[in-house]
């Protein structure tokens, strides 16, 4: 298993947001993490990436316990993510934004002081521009990120995460706010990424999108896992139906 959560728990104040959660992801797999609003899905991502420490339980990456590992080291180990509310750096251009993630591949003072902005042919800048071109974003490369349309920023965030060369990619509601054309483009992009061997864990509400991309799903409610099964079978699970009752259409 490339990523494993064992008995993870987290409370805020007196409120237990994640309660004894366990699940695993195989290398190259595409897993969806679903559940009603407030089920704790983003919190799980935050715990996995180390935004805050877990109260108990463990997070394992490639079998190594990273539960106590400081957050900035986790991306260096191959664990990258995107964010529910887009978190690009508003005062950097698109190229500069995505280049930030490259540091995770070669951390250290020497890398920090590499003159990547100098010269026409610097390979890091070339790589960043090529990645943007692959995603059809080269027109925006030198625009300041803060002023771009929502859909464009979402795509940029994905390119940024990829430039860290992750083995596991956590995507927090990647399809939220996208129109059908953008959603389809996202699907194609994620299929291509998965085909390259990147493991995907996707938090999503769009069940149609989930059904097309992810063969397996973990269902959360009130911080607990209430189901874990092939995507096609969730609508048969009684607990899942109860959790979603009246909330969303999830016909696969």
């Amino acid at each position, binding site marked *: 298993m490339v990523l494993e959560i064992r008995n993870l728990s987290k409370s805020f104040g007196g409120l237990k947001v994640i309660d004894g959660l366990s699940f695993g992801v195989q290398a190259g797999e595409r897993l969806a993490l679903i559940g009603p609003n407030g089920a704790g899905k983003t919190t799980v991502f935050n715990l996995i990436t180390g935004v805050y420490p877990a109260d108990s339980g463990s997070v394992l990456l490639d079998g190594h316990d990273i539960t106590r590992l400081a957050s*900035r080291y*986790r991306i260096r180990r191959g664990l990258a993510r995107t964010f529910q509310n887009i978190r690009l*750096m508003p005062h950097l251009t698109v190229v500069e934004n995505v*280049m*930030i993630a490259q540091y995770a591949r070669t951390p250290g003072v020497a890398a920090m002081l590499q003159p990547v*902005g100098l010269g026409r042919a610097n390979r890091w*800048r070339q790589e960043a521009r090529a990645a943007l071109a692959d995603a059809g974003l080269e027109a925006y490369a*030198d625009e300041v990120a803060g002023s771009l349309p929502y859909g464009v920023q979402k795509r940029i965030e994905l390119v940024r995460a990829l430039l860290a060369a992750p083995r596991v990619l956590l995507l927090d509601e990647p399809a939220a706010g996208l129109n059908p054309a953008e959603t389809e483009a996202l699907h194609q992009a994620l299929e291509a990424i998965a085909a390259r061997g990147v493991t995907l864990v996707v938090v999503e509400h769009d069940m149609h999108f989930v059904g097309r991309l992810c063969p397996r799903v973990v269902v959360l409610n009130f911080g607990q896992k209430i189901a874990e099964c092939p995507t096609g079978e969730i609508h048969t699970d009684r607990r899942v139906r109860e959790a979603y009752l009246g909330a969303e259409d999830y016909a696969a």
Partner: protein
Amino acid sequence: MSGYLESVLVLLAINTILAYAAFLPMVAGQLNLGVAAFVAIGAYSAGYLSNTFSVHPVPGAFAALAMAGFVGWLVAFPILRTRGIYLALATFALNQVVQGAILNMDAVGGASGYPIPEHIGFAVVATFAVGVLALVVLLFHTRFGISVTAVSDDERVADLMGLSVRGLQSAAFTAGAALAGLAGALYAHHFNYVEPQNYGVLFSIYVVLYVLLGGTQTVWGPLLGAAVFTLLPELLRGSAAWRYVIFACLIIAIMALRPQGVVVRKAWFSR
């Protein structure tokens, strides 16, 4: 070169170094109101080394740079646990404490001031200034520039992207302190006299203001700010107080009309 022209150019060179001393923490999102404290540390260190141990001004300037940088590094540990306005206030408090401490140091003259006879001319000061400028320009062509901007924009995400937030903030703060110390040493050896009254928070405020005037979005903004601050008064003549009145009005106008400063550009890295 006439004495008058020389002292104006020396001031320009020193103010340029000071501008970058304030600029580095500011790009990292830190409003450093304690710049003057580090200038003082540099000035007095260099002066003391020169007067007591006959250290030549040039190695003395490097020692001052190291001393100010070291103090900056030490102080960064507690100060960088604060954020935003608390950080600005902590640097302000630091400034006043250092000024107060120097007032009490009779070994370096205390309130009466400290004469430093060993003199350096324009050539030395200008060389240092050009060196600092070149280093800063180079620095902002590395990952450092975009990384500290990222830290300033969004600390949480910068950390998740693998950047060492604390390390970068500390580096910016320390480097700023070091440059301020260098400027102080050069001032001390050129004007040959320093006194603690010069190093209050208002000094720090002047520096921060002219950096903001020039603009913190590019490496050239601080240079322009230093130039305006140094040269405008010379062009307008009048007493020192009138120069500052005009400077203050300029700042108020700029903040009202174009708060990003005069020199604006979108990117650290061009095509």
